[in-house]
């Protein structure tokens, strides 16, 4: 039965279409057939009544006392031959008074039924001696004062013949219609699915080297167009991921080379001459410090890639922003105390809702920002943390600003500080040198959580970092 299960969609659609159509046609034809038959039978009954009422007036007893039918009204004598009515007239005793020639002497309906023809026409079906089916009615009518029972019938044979003919006509026409419908549906579905073929062949050609190519969408509103757009979005995300990967590799290579170069040149210079032990010790210590830096850079890069992937597989928990900030401040407490920095926390209608995010990543993000603020704060200065809320596009966001009194951010560098491995051209603060990834990581994590982070540009002294994080609209699980 495998050949009945074609693999391509257009054949399957055509077959389904034909099957459904033939079932519907069959039901329809049967219904029409029955309806038509009943209708015609009703019509015959109706005609018979009309006929019996007419014939009644034409019956008369001739001078011999036998019943006759008036025939003198025919303009042409041969018109008589067109009459195929079957009629039998009996007196109430049951004696046959008259029979049409069409009955060829046979009886019509046999012996009389009780009360036949008195209250109704006693419509019934009967069979003549020669087997002809007849639809028969009876009626009692006085002819010249003498009541007679008139039985009048028509042979059903012509109706049956015509119905049979009609049936054969349908029988022949239906398969032709079905075949035509099959072909049409096949070609229509092929035409409808044509974009799919072109999309498939286009998609087949897309590889890592031409990820910027897109599938051509013919009609963006139909289902295939929708699918095309979905595929294009997928390609776009793939392309972005790929670009990110390439950027990651390039950044990594660049940033790893610097400490490597330092390690290499330290080693080379140290080995050029014999030196006192202390000098070797010094060189090796320097090399180890660079290794630590290398290690931190690698960890930072891996964290970046982890944060980039966080959208798909992180398990967010619910926690309070202030609680997380306090945890970080406890961690940084020793720095804050040592530098005699005053941390002021202010609340300006801060929302009470918790935050829903990957806590460990959010901690890294806020730790980087707060650590920077502490790092750049001068001794005995004030670090101001303000919790509040902000509304954007109908959504409430947590808003936290961290304002230090440090050197601030040089004009034009407010966005660039978030770039990977950014080092300020203005503040040559090598003492503050980190991996150059902290703020990129913070921004990536905050972005991925639907928030935003930026440094306010018109701040008089120090740097003011503003972070917005969305309040989850979902029912949050409590952590």
């Amino acid at each position, binding site marked *: 039965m495998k050949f009945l299960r074609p693999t391509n969609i257009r054949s399957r659609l055509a077959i389904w279409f034909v099957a459904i159509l033939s079932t519907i046609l069959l039901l329809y034809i049967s219904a029409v057939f029955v309806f038509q038959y009943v209708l015609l039978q009703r019509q015959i009954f109706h005609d018979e009544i009309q006929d019996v009422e007419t014939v009644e007036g034409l019956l008369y007893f001739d001078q011999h006392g036998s019943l006759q039918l008036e025939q003198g009204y025919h303009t042409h004598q041969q018109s008589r031959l067109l009459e195929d009515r079957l009629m039998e007239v009996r007196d109430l005793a049951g004696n046959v008074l008259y029979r049409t020639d069409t009955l060829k002497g046979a009886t019509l309906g046999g012996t009389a039924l009780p009360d036949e023809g008195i209250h109704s026409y006693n419509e019934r079906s009967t069979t003549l001696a020669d087997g002809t089916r007849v639809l028969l009615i009876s009626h009692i009518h006085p002819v010249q004062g003498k009541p007679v029972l008139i039985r009048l019938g028509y042979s059903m044979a012509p109706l049956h013949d015509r119905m049979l003919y009609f049936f054969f006509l349908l029988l022949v026409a239906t398969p032709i219609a079905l075949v035509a419908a099959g072909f049409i549906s096949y070609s229509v579905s092929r035409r409808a699915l044509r974009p799919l073929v072109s999309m498939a062949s286009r998609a087949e050609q897309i590889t890592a080297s031409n990820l910027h190519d897109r599938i051509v969408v013919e009609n963006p509103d139909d289902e295939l167009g929708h699918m095309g757009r979905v595929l294009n979005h997928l390609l776009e995300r793939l392309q972005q991921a790929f670009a990110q990967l390439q950027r990651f590799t390039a950044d990594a290579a660049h940033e790893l080379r610097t400490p490597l170069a330092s390690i290499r040149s330290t080693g080379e210079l140290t080995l050029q001459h014999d030196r006192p032990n202390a000098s070797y010790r010094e060189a090796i*210590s320097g090399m180890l410090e660079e290794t630590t830096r290398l290690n931190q850079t690698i960890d930072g890069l891996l964290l970046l890639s982890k944060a980039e992937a966080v959208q798909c597989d992180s398990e967010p928990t619910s926690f309070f922003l202030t609680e997380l900030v306090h945890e970080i401040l406890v*961690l*940084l407490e020793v720095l804050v105390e*040592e530098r005699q920095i005053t941390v002021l926390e202010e609340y300006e209608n801060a929302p009470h809702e918790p935050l829903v995010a990957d806590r460990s990543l959010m901690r*890294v993000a806020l730790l980087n920002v707060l650590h920077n603020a502490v790092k750049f704060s001068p001794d005995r200065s004030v670090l101001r943390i303000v919790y509040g809320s902000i509304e954007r596009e109908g959504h409430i966001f947590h808003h936290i600003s961290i304002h230090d009194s440090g050197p601030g951010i040089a004009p034009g560098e407010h966005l660039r500080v978030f770039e990977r491995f950014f080092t300020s051209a203005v503040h040559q603060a090598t003492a503050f040198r980190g991996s150059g990834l902290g703020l990129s990581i913070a921004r990536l994590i905050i972005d991925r959580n639907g928030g935003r982070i930026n440094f306010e540009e018109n701040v008089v002294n120090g740097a003011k970092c503003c972070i917005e994080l969305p309040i989850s609209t979902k029912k949050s699980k409590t952590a």
Partner: protein
Amino acid sequence: MNTTSPISGRILVVEDDRRMADSLVSGLTGYGYQVSLARTGEEAFFLVHSTQPDLVLLDLTLPKRGGLEILAQIRAEQLPTRVLILTSHNSVDDRVTGLNSGADDYLGKPFSFPELLARVASLLRRLPAPPRSASLQIADIHIDTKAHLVSRSGTPIDLTPREYDLLLYLLEHRNQAVSREMLAKDVWRETSRFTPIDNVIDVQMARLRRKIDDPFTTKLLLTLRGVGFILREPEQ
């Protein structure tokens, strides 16, 4: 000086990178361990059976037979060998895979040698954590671990809880270098590897030194540049 004397033990290093293998062998030998080296999985199988090491330092990425296969074999044969995985695949998943396969510990490359030594020592003592005695002492510093009291030369020293934890950790690793990574992980309990708290550690260490070393002539808490810190008993 009992803690400086190396714990005797047979260690099998399974590592295909020659330089890494050499430094592991010489480093561990320098601390008194009997070290043998296998560069391939097959060699490792042979040496596991012939030398019956107490501890296997296992690199997961090996030519021919993978590290996990060796680990599975050791566990299948129910050998009493402890296994410490060394690998550059540092994700949590790798760690879980390694530990689920029956490894006793897991250390990501690049690791600090002091940390490796601490882990090796701990594994060979076959104790999950050394029991904390009621009092610890180094030179004239005395810690009462029950009352959390610290004194040096009989002078009580007032430490914050963090400083106390730090000193206790250094004392437990006395005469061993401890790296900032170890401190971040074990004292500050930072799980993320990228946590820029090196200067927090440095400042904390400076404050501790101010309390336990600065008022005294003999300095015990030393900074090893590029390595970390060491709490060392003064040489007589």
